[in-house]
């Protein structure tokens, strides 16, 4: 099953975390990525400019109805919710969700609805519970989920809330196990892609995991 979209949510500590995450994404990475970072409504477009230095893929703030293009990275603009339609984004100015606009739940729920099991949801460091519900929706529709290991996060609140909402009995959260399980399953590519198990990983392991999930033959 090929993944067609990655959605990422973060708040407190997000800028540094995104630097690390995006630095690990290679220039031939083809699955589009949409990012919600909680931001103040007054914040301007410098976030995209700043992150551009750390990733070799095109990165931009979403304008209404922007096409979701392979190999592109998209950032939710301040004071709008970001949603996905089939093949393009849409925006909304509806009331904040979990005190946030853009809200991670709004993006993730929309992505789960449209992309079903072809989406990967990633939750990074953050200071509130936005995203926990949306991540669960992604998992329920058969998508894959990755959570930054709370013990490595600048703020553990968001990844912890996400973990709890997934009822973590199937979590494998020791990086060594993740690495060795990758090696074992490389010989069986179909099995490799069956990853509805939520993975809890240190930040530096997340980009390699995305490459593995999206381009297993290259990792």
């Amino acid at each position, binding site marked *: 099953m090929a993944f067609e979209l990655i959605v990422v949510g973060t708040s407190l500590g997000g800028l540094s975390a995104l630097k690390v995450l995006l630095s690990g994404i290679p220039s031939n990475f083809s699955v589009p990525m949409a990012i919600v970072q909680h931001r103040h409504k007054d914040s301007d477009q410098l976030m995209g400019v700043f992150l551009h230095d750390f990733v070799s893929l095109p990165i931009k703030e*979403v*304008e*209404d109805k922007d096409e979701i293009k392979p190999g592109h990275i998209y950032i939710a603009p301040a004071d709008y919710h970001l*949603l996905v339609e089939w093949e393009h984004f*849409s925006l909304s*100015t509806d009331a904040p969700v979990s005190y946030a606009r853009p809200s991670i739940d709004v993006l993730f729920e*929309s992505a789960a609805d449209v992309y079903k099991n072809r989406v990967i949801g990633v939750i990074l460091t953050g200071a509130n519970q936005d995203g926990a519900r949306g991540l669960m929706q992604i998992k329920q529709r058969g998508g894959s989920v990755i959570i930054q290991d709370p013990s490595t996060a600048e703020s553990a609140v968001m990844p912890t809330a996400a973990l709890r909402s997934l009822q973590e009995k199937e979590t494998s959260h020791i990086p060594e196990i993740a690495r060795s399980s990758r090696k074992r399953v490389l010989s069986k590519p179909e099995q490799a892609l069956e990853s509805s198990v939520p993975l809890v990983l240190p930040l530096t392991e997340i980009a390699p995991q995305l490459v593995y999930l999206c381009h297993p033959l290259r990792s």
Partner: protein
Amino acid sequence: MTSLHRPELEDIEVQLLLEGVYQCYGYDFRNYALSSLKRRIWTLTHAEDLPNISALQERVLHDRACLERFIVGLSIHVTAMFRDPSFYMAFREKVIPILRTYPFIRIWHAGCSTGQEVYSMAILLEEEGLYQRCRIYATDMNEQVLQKAKSGIFPLELMQEYTHLYQKAGGKRSFSEYYTAAYDSAIFRASLKERIIFSQHNLATDSSFNEFNVIICRNVLIYFNKTLQQRVHKLFYDSLCTFGILGLGKQETLRLTPHEKYYTELKPGEKIYRRLN
């Protein structure tokens, strides 16, 4: 409340609901952007304490009061006075000089919702000494929402944020001059409404009704799909004087739309466009 989602069935239920509302009442939501529409429909379904969208359809079609709640729920656009202050600064800088050359100015706020942007523009025009030359049309598809806009009453607790935005937008006076506080409400000055006509108009179904020097439609088109957006852009184009001004929301754009070539952008990034000849 968690529900068992059955996505394909849900999409069918949404289509049936919208078709039912259109055929019964003439409100056409069939070309609204699906993702935000579905979210709002679910919010309304939960608010009615119903288990699914089919149940909402049943109530909407048989209970007039529920229909009213439904329409209002899909009509309200959350906004603020002087939202995106840089838009208003750019309007002052680029559009006001143009408007000064006209003896009479017609302005249309399309999809005005509860009216914050209408009063913001009225204040701006008043401060620039142009208000008396203006005739402002503020339209929305729902009568209840229009009544709210017409009242000019907003929660007092919002005034602190609005004051901040007003100042960033280049406001020349003290924001509190424009309203009186009564209990937990701020009542805006009646003089701000003198030149404003509030009237019902549905962008999805109605046609052009006048020619304007300025059309403001900010963060309304985001709720429409591409088909309906094109319809509305044609309507705006047909309703603008030559060199008329179209103002959109911060993250809206004419780029890559069929109407892009008919306009030039007056200030990069501020979404203020001038209709070319």
